[in-house]
């Protein structure tokens, strides 16, 4: 029996060896470079909790205005709690505030009920946020102004002629002289021209536009426009301090390729950053220079030397960000492992010395080696850079899914923090102004990959709060947002001074009434004007009669002057949904159809809110 025993012992040994071999060849259950386990970038939980906890009733330190991407909205968060406080509808109807349902906002939206919001830009004075307005772009060639006095969209300008796919926008100049726009998708101009794709390289055009901002009212109007080679203009930033007067735009597809761009546009090692002398453009526009295309005067840099220069930047650059002192311009080639820093002084010298290596459609290309200060090895897929205190810069790395912290001047990468996952933009506290605050940074990540309770396949985006007060960056908090934050602006709360009710004396609406006795129904032919009052807890008139086919305008005034006493007017079966803030008057115009239609207050207001109802009878 001993041979049996020894044989089975041998088999057992072989088996154990095979198993050991197999186990040792098995992949680990988690990445070996697990940042969490290594303690990399994650705060001590108690510290993180304390840094982000804003007690009930307490207020946050910063406002975060986050673009809502193709939701067409702006989301307002508080930092450091990362609480979503409100949503400002801009390019999309938003029933919660009645936006896009009343006559004025419907008119402002025009025929488009969708917009792809990308880059909010706070108004600036001397390169610092002044808390007056927020400008936001969207891809259909429009820019909107939100007044931060009441957090409402006040103007939508556009679509602007010739601009196609307005992505590199709405960046503002240091005194909010201009908000800029540029074409991401070059087209033959004017719009309406149809040309075969084979003519892309020669006959399609990119367009850069300056939108003039009235310094008092914020009212936007067309400023100037420059026609450009058919590159894809991607992002921009206005020069400041040393580089004030210039605005920089990255572009990809210097190949002027079409078709499968992921291949055709990525063949060259360098694309371009276009820099436009906006003060010169302003002057030329004032002189009436340019050719009339699509109803606006368009400046051609070929005929106007000095207006535009091209800086070679590797490879397929995405973000271009001007450092606080204005002298360094950081261009991030998204298909590289480095971010490129240009020196504005060197750029000026190169321009003076005509240190050019060629031209594109008559626009001089500066010599890369003469204008570059550094290629900072930040990591894979650098996209955008923000600035902190003490000369630190923070660059988002899409491919590495991390933020790199590096120092201006020494170009040394000092720290990295992982982001979950695939960070796009990032925003630091006042991190694109002349005086960044440091303190916090928010990574606006494209993927959340189940770091939240599962909500099915349509997952939210993730916005992560990072503490940048110390040498090492620390992840503090995960927040989740609806699609899709691109860029955001973080501003100190004390710079914004919103009103809480519309003061009665400021309401100049021609149909505003303030006494229930003045509520009325006035007929003029088939036009009927209903002046209605909303006040706790009655909508007056409580009932009124119309004739079928009447063209009816209801002007409703909320005569409350108390904070948060909003009233709504919902009319069933009519797709009418107004929300009127205290002291506000809104109108809605519609054609009367036969029937008996209850109307009611939609925005819960008082103990007798349910009773706040009436009937519109159409005979």
């Amino acid at each position, binding site marked *: 029996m001993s041979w049996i025993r020894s044989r089975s012992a041998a088999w057992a040994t072989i088996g154990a060896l095979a198993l050991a071999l197999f186990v040792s060849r098995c992949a680990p259950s988690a990445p070996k470079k697990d940042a969490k386990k290594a303690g990399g970038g994650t705060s001590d939980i108690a510290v993180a909790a304390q840094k982000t906890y804003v007690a009930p009733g307490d207020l946050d330190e910063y406002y975060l205005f986050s673009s809502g991407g193709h939701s067409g909205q702006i989301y307002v968060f508080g930092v450091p709690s990362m609480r979503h406080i409100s949503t400002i509808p801009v390019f999309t109807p938003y029933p919660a505030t009645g936006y896009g349902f009343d006559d004025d906002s419907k008119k402002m939206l025009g025929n488009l009920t969708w917009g792809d919001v990308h880059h909010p830009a706070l108004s600036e004075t001397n390169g610092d946020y002044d808390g007056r307005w927020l400008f936001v772009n969207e891809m259909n060639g429009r820019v909107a102004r939100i007044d931060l006095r009441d957090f409402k969209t006040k103007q939508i300008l556009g679509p602007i002629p010739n601009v196609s796919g307005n992505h590199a926008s709405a960046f503002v100049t240091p005194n909010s002289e201009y908000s800029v726009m540029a074409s991401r998708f070059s087209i033959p101009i004017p719009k309406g021209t149809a040309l075969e794709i084979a003519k892309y390289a020669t006959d399609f055009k990119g367009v850069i536009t300056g939108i003039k901002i009235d310094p008092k009212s914020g009212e936007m109007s067309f400023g100037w426009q420059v026609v450009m080679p058919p590159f894809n203009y991607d992002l921009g930033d206005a020069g400041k301090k040393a580089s004030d007067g210039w605005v920089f735009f990255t572009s990809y597809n210097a190949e002027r390729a079409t078709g499968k761009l992921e291949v055709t546009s990525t063949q060259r090692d360098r694309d371009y950053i276009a820099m436009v002398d906006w003060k010169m453009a302003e002057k030329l526009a004032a002189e009436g220079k340019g050719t009339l295309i699509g109803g606006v005067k368009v400046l051609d840099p070929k005929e106007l030397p000095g207006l535009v220069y091209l800086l070679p930047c590797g490879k397929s650059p995405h973000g271009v960000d001007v450092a606080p002192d204005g002298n360094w311009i950081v261009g991030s080639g998204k298909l590289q492992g480095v971010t490129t820093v240009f020196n504005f002084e060197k750029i000026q010298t190169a321009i003076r010395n005509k240190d050019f290596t060629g031209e594109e459609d008559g626009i001089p290309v500066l010599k890369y080696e003469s204008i570059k200060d550094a290629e900072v090895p930040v990591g894979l897929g650098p996209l955008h850079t923000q600035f902190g205190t003490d000369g630190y810069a923070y660059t988002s790395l899409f491919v590495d899914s991390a933020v790199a912290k590096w120092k201006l001047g020494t170009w040394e990468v000092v720290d990295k923090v992982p982001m979950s996952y695939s960070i796009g933009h990032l925003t630091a506290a006042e991190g694109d102004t002349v005086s960044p605050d440091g303190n916090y940074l928010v990574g606006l990540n494209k993927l959340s990959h189940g770091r939240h309770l599962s909500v099915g396949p349509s997952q939210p985006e993730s916005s992560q709060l990072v503490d940048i007060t110390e040498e090492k960056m620390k992840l503090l908090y995960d927040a989740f947002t609806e699609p899709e934050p691109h860029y955001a602006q973080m501003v100190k709360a004390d710079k914004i001074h919103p009103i809480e*009710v519309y003061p009665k004396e400021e309401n100049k609406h021609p149909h505003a009434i303030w006494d229930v006795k003045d509520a009325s129904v006035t007929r003029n032919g088939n036009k009927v004007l209903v002046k209605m009052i909303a*006040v*706790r*807890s009655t909508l007056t008139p409580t009932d009124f009669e119309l004739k079928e086919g009447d063209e009816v305008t209801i002007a409703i005034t909320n005569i*409350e*002057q*108390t904070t948060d006493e909003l009233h709504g007017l919902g009319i069933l079966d009519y797709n009418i949904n107004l929300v009127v803030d205290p002291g506000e008057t809104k109108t809605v115009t519609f054609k009367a159809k036969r029937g008996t239609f209850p109307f009611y207050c939609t925005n819960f207001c008082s*103990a*007798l809110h349910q*009773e706040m109802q009436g009937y519109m009878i159409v005979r």
Partner: protein
Amino acid sequence: MQGFFARLNQSLARPLGVAPRLLVVASALLLVAVYLFPLWNLTMFAPQYPEGLRLDIYSYKLVGGNGGQDIPEINILNHYIGMRDLVTDDFTEFKWLPFVVGALGLLYLRAAVMGTVGGLVDVLVLNIYFSAFALWSFGYKMYVYGHNLLPTAAVKVEPFMPPMFGGTQLANFEVYSYPQAGSYAMGLSSLLLVAALVVAWRQSRAASRQGT
């Protein structure tokens, strides 16, 4: 008995010394406060109104807190229990009260100049009568507001007397009612008159002792 009245008449006819006259002038000057400061304040807190709703009652006007907004707010809340709106026109006091205070002040000054103990007694009596009447008038107003409730009110409450002095709980509201600088000045003005009378009385007693 006749002797008493004779002595009383004598005392009342005595001229005032410098100190009582100055006290009377000071008392008259204090009345100016009635035009400058509120007489009474009502403050109401509820969970929804953590900062409170405030009502200042002056001798000639109502002033709501929060830039005046608290009055319409109080009215909106009160309409649910069928209470009358607080409107300036309902307060007849606002028409006569400032006039009467002015007249009182002039009478005080007259008493200081004419300077007899009798004159001083006159204004003190007027002062007390006026203060008591104003207080009653205010209380009555409060009573009427609290009792004259519309029978059709959405929320039926028992008629009630709002607090005149101190705090109380009314439904979800903590209500506080306290006199303000104007009333305190009125009170102090009365005290100064009393003081003037005491000083004058002592001086007159001293004088009569010296006289005998």
